[in-house]
């Protein structure tokens, strides 16, 4: 209570300092949430690509781009150390990908269910409905990722239009925070049909729709290094680019860790400014209260007690600023995600860890900033301080 009164003594100054901290923490919370989201995406990708080789057409990337043939799957299956090969067809949900997009774009993802023979370890849970099965081949059914389902506002049993073709929704996934959230999973045959329609007629006429694939996911036999398989594929098959988990981590991981560093850096710089303003506020406050500190010292307050009083007060400034910043950051990330939902672009992931560490950081920053003025205050000579006007 006494402390609140001390803060209230210079309302404007305390409010401005708290605002400074608040803005810093808000920046940290918002950018931190963005970094969380990117991390989750990358981690999801990294988990997915681990222990396997994804083969795309040369010049293509992660299954997007050129056309492969399911016949290549048989070729690759024959290589040493290969366990299972799953042919898939991936394409963008919409050709219009103008505008800045964070994370992965909405995708259609076709493959024969259970073709991996249980080798896929990437965990996917169903919020409602069921998974695709081999028996779905030939019918137009789809399982939607959580963000996509929200974008379509679709329930199990509804019909959605994917590239001008109607699909019946049979299942909806729980959020994974990574690529599948933005994907529609369909049977391979249906995806092949859709893909054909994206190709120019002249090209399409020369292709057999039943063998089209855009990616081949190669599962090595247990204990075989995916890099060895990738080398084998490079050596024996032309016109393809195999990609391993290591490649993914190198390409994507490096880019995102840089981005993360920039985001967190911005947040930290704004906090540094906030911290300096706490030092300033507390130094002013100590100067104003010189006489009061003299009284307290004279009637028996120890140096330690004077220091504690000031450090606690500035820690409270940090704490209040931190809590307000967290609140503001929460509002911004929530509004941002709500706005992005219609286009299935979820930018922020405000985790408990980010929230807690931001507030804790603000409090520690406040206390640390208070220490210099506190030290000065505790060294004042009581007699001199008492005479101070």
């Amino acid at each position, binding site marked *: 209570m*006494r402390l609140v009164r001390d803060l209230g003594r210079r309302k404007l100054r305390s409010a401005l300092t708290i605002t400074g901290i608040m803005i810093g923490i808000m920046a940290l919370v918002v950018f931190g949430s963005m970094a969380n989201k990117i991390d989750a995406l990358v981690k999801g990708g990294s988990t997915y690509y681990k222990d396997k080789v994804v083969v795309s057409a040369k010049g293509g990337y992660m299954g997007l781009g050129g056309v492969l043939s399911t016949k290549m799957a048989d070729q690759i299956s024959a290589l040493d150390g290969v366990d299972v090969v799953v042919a898939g067809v991936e394409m963008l949900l919409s050709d219009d990908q103008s505008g800045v997009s964070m994370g992965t774009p909405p995708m259609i993802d076709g493959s024969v269910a259970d073709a991996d023979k249980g080798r896929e370890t990437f965990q996917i849970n169903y919020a409602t409905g069921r998974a695709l099965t081999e028996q779905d081949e030939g019918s137009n059914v789809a399982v939607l990722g959580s963000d996509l389902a929200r974008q379509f506002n679709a329930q199990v049993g509804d019909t959605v239009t994917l590239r001008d073709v109607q699909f019946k929704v049979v299942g909806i996934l729980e959020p994974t925070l990574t690529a599948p959230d933005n994907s529609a999973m369909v049977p391979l045959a249906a995806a092949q049909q859709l893909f054909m329609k994206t190709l120019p007629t002249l090209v399409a006429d020369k292709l057999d729709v039943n063998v089209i694939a855009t990616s081949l996911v190669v599962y090595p036999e247990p204990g075989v290094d995916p890099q060895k398989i990738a080398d084998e594929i490079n050596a024996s098959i032309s016109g393809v680019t195999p990609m391993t988990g290591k490649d993914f981590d190198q390409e994507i991981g490096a880019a995102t860790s840089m981005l993360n560093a920039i985001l967190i850096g911005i947040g930290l710089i704004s906090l540094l400014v906030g911290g300096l303003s706490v030092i300033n506020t507390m130094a002013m406050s100590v100067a104003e209260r010189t*006489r009061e500190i003299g009284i307290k010292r*004279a*009637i028996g*307050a120890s*140096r330690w007690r004077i220091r504690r009083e000031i450090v606690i007060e500035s820690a409270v400034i940090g704490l209040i600023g931190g809590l307000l910043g967290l609140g503001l950051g929460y509002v911004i990330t929530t509004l941002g995600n709500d706005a992005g939902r219609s286009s299935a672009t979820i930018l922020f992931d405000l985790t408990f860890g980010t929230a807690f560490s931001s507030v804790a950081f603000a409090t520690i920053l406040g206390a640390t900033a208070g220490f210099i003025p506190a030290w000065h205050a505790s060294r004042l*000579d009581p*007699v001199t301080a008492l005479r101070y006007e």
Partner: protein
Amino acid sequence: MAILEGRNLRKTYRLSRRNTVEALKGVEISIDQGEMVAIMGPSGSGKSTLMHILGLLHAPDPNHGPAPELRLAGEDMAALSDNARTRIRARRMGFVFQDFNLVPTLTALENVMLACEYAGIGGKQARQAGLEALALVGLEDRASHKPSELSGGEQQRVAVARALVNKPEIILADEPTGNLDSDRSAEVLALLREFNREHGQTIVLVTHDAEVGEACDRVIRMRDGRIRDQGQRAAAVAAPAMATPAAVAAMAGPAVATA
């Protein structure tokens, strides 16, 4: 019996490299238990400096010649650390200043309780002691007022309550009436006099005011950093010591009854 004794007390303040002030030039002083003593002298005579040393706010200079001695109830205080001196100020001494020196954000009661807190007494006990001390100075109904809502005389009475709340062995007052008009001044002086007479509270006060000096048992006169006159001790200084339980009960009893 002497409660506070000093010998060879010197203090030189260094204002700048070449400008030093020899404020005390070797002082010997002895205050008896239960005495109410005034230290008087012109400005710059060293009386405030002496008060700061007696109140352990400053340490006496370590002399080249005879070492300084300072004893509170027989215990050596001359070479204590800052922390140890702070502890004794908090637990065994009470202070009253010319400018009242209350903490402006705290109520009268909280100001008094602050002294309890520094002496290691907290919670209900401190509240009870604070209210009793305010009752003793006749301000129990002003307990929740801030200093800015009190008159100068009332503020000084709160300061007196703060000085005596821990039942100190000695109260040191630096010009306690210096900022008050003559009526308020007489009121505060009467209050101090009453504690001294009825509860045997030892009081040392620094003053310019001859009337205040006359009201005391003894006047010590200073000039140029030395004591010129130790004054005549009053014939009888007999009253129970403040710190005995009986005295505490006597002090608290009537006050609580009137509250």
